[in-house]
């Protein structure tokens, strides 16, 4: 099993979710984060004074998947959220030792 963690553009969340659902992806965790990377922040202003905002709202998706699905899902995500513009985000893959479904107590891949 692995954990796939993807940082994507806020407006892409809906599309990705639909795609993953179609694929039959078990479940996911969505977190609203602020990202900081190559993408330059925007300029805002308040009562006549401008200022730069260095953090960009991003969505972090975490999915724990069976080893066999890992690559397919990574592909799936990339194909749905990629725009080619700076700020598309990244995907991080982590090892995971175990997983438990609280409701049933099942452990390991079956719990995914």
């Amino acid at each position, binding site marked *: 099993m692995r954990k796939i963690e993807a940082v994507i553009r806020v407006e892409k969340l809906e599309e990705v979710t639909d795609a993953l659902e179609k694929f039959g992806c078990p479940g996911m965790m969505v977190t609203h984060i602020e990202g900081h990377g190559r993408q330059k922040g925007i300029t*805002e202003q308040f009562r006549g004074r401008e200022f730069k905002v260095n953090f960009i709202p991003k969505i972090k998706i975490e999915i724990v998947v069976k080893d066999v699905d890992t690559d397919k899902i990574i592909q799936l995500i990339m194909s749905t959220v990629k725009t080619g513009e700076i700020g598309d985000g990244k995907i991080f893959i982590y090892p995971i030792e175990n997983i438990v479904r609280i409701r049933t107590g099942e452990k390991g891949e079956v719990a995914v």
Partner: protein
Amino acid sequence: MGKRLGKWFISMKTAMLAVIIGLLVYLAVPFSAFAADPSGAETLAHNPQSPVDYVWVLVCGFLVFFMQAGFAMVEAGFCRAKNATNLMAKNTIDFVVASLVFMAFGFALMMGNDYKGLIGTSGWFLHGANYDVGKYLMFFWQLVFAGTAATIVSGAVAERLKFKAYFLYSLAVTAIVYPIYGHWVWGGGWLSKLPFGVGHVDFAGSGVVHTIGGFVGLAGAIVLGPRFGKFGKDGKPRAIPGHSIVLAALGTFILWFGWFGFNPGSTFSAHQLRIAVIAVNTNLAAAAGAAVAILLVFLKTKKWDVGMMLNGCLAGLVAVTAPCAWIEAWAAVVIGSIAGLLVVLSVYFWENIGVDDPVGAVSVHAVNGFWGLISVGLFADGTYGLGTTEGPLVKGLFYGGGLGQLIAQAIGAVVCVAWAFGLGLIIFKVMDKCFGVRVLPHEEIKGLDIGEHGTPAYPNFYTFNN
């Protein structure tokens, strides 16, 4: 060509103010002499009872002004957080523009000396003989109404119209659309002289203010097209929840409150004790509209829909605005109830034919403004006249007044729709040709607050951008 015109608009915009000031300064000198009664001394001497009328009209006018806050809150509440700053900007600028433009042109076109029943022709810049307490009083009253008509539109075009376009639209509506139609009904124009019933009547403006505003808004919504995500790929309408039911409710209460100035104040005199009846009718229609709307949706979804109840309340207020002075309490309840029914059907209707009206402005103001005008022809009970207790009294079908009044109302209503919708389409289409009235897709997605104003409404809060 569109480009050049576009540029022109911009430069014009920034120039506008300078021009107005210049003009004013210029005009100032010569005429001041002709001033009528600027201090009010003569007016008071001539009518010692006038103070109470002035107090009544001004206080009611203040309440009508306060409706600006109500519209701002309702619209903000029914739209998303990412566009809240933009809605505040629009709901402020329309009254700002209205104040300046109506003073310069609108008031003269609407209330100036009548020319062939079509337009008014005097009182530009409140100048010369208009430097008179009575004239200023009337200007103040008409201004807050013009401002209300203008602000109605912001709801229908919310979350996608450029601020610049809204700025120019406000100019057009308060300088031309509103005052000219207003002249026809309230300025001694042709509609008020129709040879049916007592002529077309609209006590406090179901037509002049709400139908006008509502249909210009409809035109805007159509030219703009729906917001991203309003209709699914299957074309089915989808709900886009507003960001604060609390703001929407607060706004509705403020509007309800302001309406007590809007309707009763339209007697323009405290000596018309009928104001008590008007206040009661106004309130009953609002209540009936709210009750019917929430119950109807409950029957459909088994949930108590607050948003629709608020719309229903406003629908009742809009509908009773025209008849409020000529009907009895029970009729107000009936008129309000029907308004509650209409607003629910209307909200579904527009969505189903693909029109995106984010806050229900069209359903509330356009549809029920129309209904309000018609209702006069049905429920007017012949106990009250044209802002006076003397005849001619206004009598509708149900009170043996025959079809006359109903016809006069129907004609006025149809003319109102044609005028507002027609000019509305022209205004928005022309602007669209020149510089495009809709913000860029990515701006719309990120929200207009950032793109147009650079100022998110709630920088300290964690907000979703859906």
